[in-house]
């Protein structure tokens, strides 16, 4: 079985976000970049599927500039067999990213596509289902687990009020959320092996970007708050403020 895992290079979630001069992008200076955490869960899921089957192939694919090669090397060190960097600039237009991924995945002829349910930078939660549409594959979103049985992928997914167990015939696209397993750390052996694994570079077939960013701004400041008091004695005053001042109760 061949599994494609799509990963994105994003700023570390603890990074301090500053707006760059020009007010349309962030200033990358001093920021540590990582594989988007949900994409790491997707990669871990793919590696476990391959291990459970005892055979198969995992290919990591990323759309980004040459710096994204760093994250693809990490994916290879974690255990992916090969990687493809689709060189181009991603934007808020997830459909452009999905187009580039779809073009590559069609060529790769895969059985299963896994990706994080969202990238933690743009937080759009859209590339997975768009990719499925472009590939005309069924799509399961926000899955906390994925197993393969009899030509189908079976997933648990979060829905309002509980967990749903769903299945779809392969080939399929599944977007992954945090589940039972933490992503593995690359071993020293994995890091050494990654240097010899194939990392292909191609131009991303993004097409046109049709979301124009007019401005990027920091969030509005919150008005200064106040300490109502200490311990249980402060509770009646808090409730009065919530009812009469904030009017939220």
């Amino acid at each position, binding site marked *: 079985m061949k599994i494609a895992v799509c990963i994105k290079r994003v700023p570390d979630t603890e990074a301090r976000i500053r707006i760059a001069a020009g007010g349309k992008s962030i200033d990358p200076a001093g920021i540590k970049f990582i594989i988007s955490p949900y994409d790491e869960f997707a990669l871990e899921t793919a590696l476990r599927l391959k291990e459970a089957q005892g055979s198969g192939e995992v290919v990591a694919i990323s759309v980004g500039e040459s710096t994204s090669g760093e994250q693809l090397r990490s994916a290879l060190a974690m255990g992916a067999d090969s990687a493809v960097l689709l060189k181009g600039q991603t934007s808020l237009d997830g459909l452009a990213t999905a187009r580039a991924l779809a073009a590559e995945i069609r060529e790769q002829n895969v059985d299963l596509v896994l990706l994080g349910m969202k990238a933690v930078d*743009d*937080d759009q939660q859209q*590339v997975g289902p768009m990719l499925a549409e472009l590939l005309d594959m069924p799509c399961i979103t926000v899955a906390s687990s994925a197993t393969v049985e009899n030509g189908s992928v079976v997933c648990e997914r979060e829905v309002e*009020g509980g*967990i749903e*167990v769903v*299945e779809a015939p392969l080939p399929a696209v599944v977007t992954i959320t945090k589940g039972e397993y933490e992503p593995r750390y690359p071993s020293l052996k994995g890091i050494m092996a990654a240097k010899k694994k194939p990392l292909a570079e191609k131009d991303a077939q993004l097409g046109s970007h049709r979301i124009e*960013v007019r401005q990027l701004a920091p969030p509005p400041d919150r008005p200064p708050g106040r300490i109502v008091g200490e311990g249980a004695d402060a509770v009646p005053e808090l409730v009065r403020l919530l009812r009469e001042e904030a009017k939220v109760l």
Partner: protein
Amino acid sequence: MNVLAIAEQKDGSLRRISSEVVTAARSVADAIGGSVHALLITPAVGDAASVGRFGADVVHVATAPAYDADVYAATIADHVRSGDYFAVLFGAGGQGRDLAPRVAAKLDVPLATDATSLEVDGGELVITRPVYAGRAFATVVLDAKPRIVSIRPNTFRPQESERTATVENIATSSVPSRVKVRETKAASGGRVDVGEASIVVSGGRGLKGPEHWHLLEALRDALGPAAALGASRAVVDAGWRPHAEQVGQTGKTVSPQLYFAVGISGAMQHLAGMRSARTIVAINRDPDAPIFKIADYGIVGDAHEVLPKLVEEIRKGH
């Protein structure tokens, strides 16, 4: 040109997020001089005309059994193709997040998710949406028609009027449904999701252990059915609470009317996920906890002492 609001029902009545979507659609339609059409896909029609209360002129109703992304997305896309829509608005709840990207891809147009404000300027729809889990806000325009947008729950306050919508039945698209539901395990008893709840009661490490969550549950219950539990990343990583409840950049970004942060010190990625709440209450033993810097109201104290009193005071008012 008109604006299409994708509406959802739960147990026969319009979901809160949908009343927000229709309200947002009304304000956009008024700005462009158009009408609001709502599209409701539902197993049983129920009271479709009531969607008019929030500003819909026409409600298109398609009947379909339980939710199926393939069928719903095809029905919406087919309907959009048949009309002349300036914009199509979804709610960024579980279903809207699942459907909007599929519909956008079918129509070959871009999608802006989680809008916190919509304005019409010079005939263009100007959308503001959070990035980096609310640590920055992007103002964007979509170079396509229709403009497909999902709106952040609890951000557009529902507004009612006397309007009554006309109801028109439309066909459900017949496409094969490829994803089969084998089983549904109810975990939270059908409660509202933390991402959509208008009141969130979140707990962190300061609670000292999962066995003390009954304190938060009691507060949630006292606050009624619009309230949901949330959790910090630390307690999810420790396995005290499920990831579905996590608030923050690696969990859910929430904008409720009222947010209680109990025993949460306020890591940057948590603050990012909840700072757009209308009112924030922090309860923490440490007076220097960063959470107090963004909280509107704070109590310095132990949750075990403060929460039972809080439940008692809130119940008194009812």
